[in-house]
């Protein structure tokens, strides 16, 4: 059984944090098909959040085909996510490091770089939506 944590300063909606933590646990192999997720009551008893938030997160996971609710028993993992290949991760880390070095050499500071990163992520994922 996994345990959810909340980061109240992240600005990420609470239900989304729960969804992301299940994704991460699946990618890391901490969760596998057949595993039970904590009940809404267990989650709210620990985090003091609205039970509807938990149910909303679980509904999202069901829509993605990752979890299924069994009446009277709870919500169980039924799907898998591709585990991120370590070699792929290393390759992108290397190209990112190279990019960062050239940005620094051009005189950009941490704040500039973070602003560029945020804008690029936003633009990139906005394209995906449109």
């Amino acid at each position, binding site marked *: 059984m996994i345990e959810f944590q909340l980061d109240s300063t992240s600005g990420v*909606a609470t239900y989304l944090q729960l969804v992301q933590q299940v994704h991460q646990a699946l990618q890391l192999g901490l969760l596998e098909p057949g595993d039970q997720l904590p009940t809404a*009551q267990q989650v*709210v*008893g620990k985090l*003091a*959040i*609205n*039970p509807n938030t938990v149910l909303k997160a679980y509904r999202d996971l069901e829509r993605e085909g990752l979890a299924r609710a069994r009446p009277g028993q709870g919500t169980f993992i039924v799907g898998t996510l591709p585990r991120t290949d370590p070699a792929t991760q290393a390759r992108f880390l290397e190209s990112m490091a190279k990019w960062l070095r050239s940005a620094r050499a051009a005189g950009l500071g941490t704040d500039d770089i973070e602003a560029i990163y945020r804008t690029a992520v936003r633009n990139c994922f906005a394209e995906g939506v449109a």
Partner: protein
Amino acid sequence: MTAVMETAGLGKQYGKRWALHDCSLAIPEGKVVGLVGPNGAGKTTLLQLAAGLLTPTAGTIEVLGGHPGSGPEQLGRVGFVAQDTPAYSRMSVSQHLRMGALLNSHWDDELAFRRIEALDIDPRQRAGSLSGGQRAQLALTLAIAKRPEVLLLDEPVASLDPLARREFLQVLMEVVAEHGVSVVLSSHLVADLERVCDYLVVLVASHIQVADDVAELLATHHRISGPRRDSRSLPADQHVIEESHTDRQTTLLIRTEQPILDPAWTTRPVTLEDIVLAYMGQARDQERARKSGLGVLR
């Protein structure tokens, strides 16, 4: 959709002062509703009207489709925890539970004792010797064990330390998950409300400023900043809640259902606290404008 609380033109007057004025609300069932606003805004008045402890001066209020305080049947459907979570200090915890059993027709004794045990409170202890957190938990237990359909809580955590506050909210949320009870909770600790509430009512100076689903509020409010400009030049769908200007820059908190297309704006998401503060500030400015307007007339 059944409303847990529905008011129309509701008002309560004390002498010449309106503690609550022209309040029209329809809160859907099954929500955890946060009622926020500065001290003296009318939060307690609204909750006491809903509980049937007060009668309206103007307008109407219905709770779960019935009239508050109209009889034992209606009283049994509503659980109310007053400000400062009062208890009878010379009575023991178990005497409180016995009193609850005698006074309420749907009393769940098993639930009451299970809760007290889970909280590690000795039932023989006098209520007067409980800590603030324990007394709040006792008051909550009494309200829950009568198995109401809606729980009204007036600033239940205001006087508690952070740990006791968290524990109180944990128990409250467990109850919501277990029994599906609707909750209306007043507080000015917005950070707490952000975790537990899915519906928010902002009440300032005896008026409702905004009442909506939290998800809807977060999706439709944005903070935008850009080169200085007049906020009156915005598209008609963008409603300014808060604005501030420097000689070069303009920052606005706006509400809009539409995407923000103007590339001059940098858009940032807002927290529930930002939204609450913006509406409180807006109400304060309106009040000031109204008063200075009156001053001119004199």
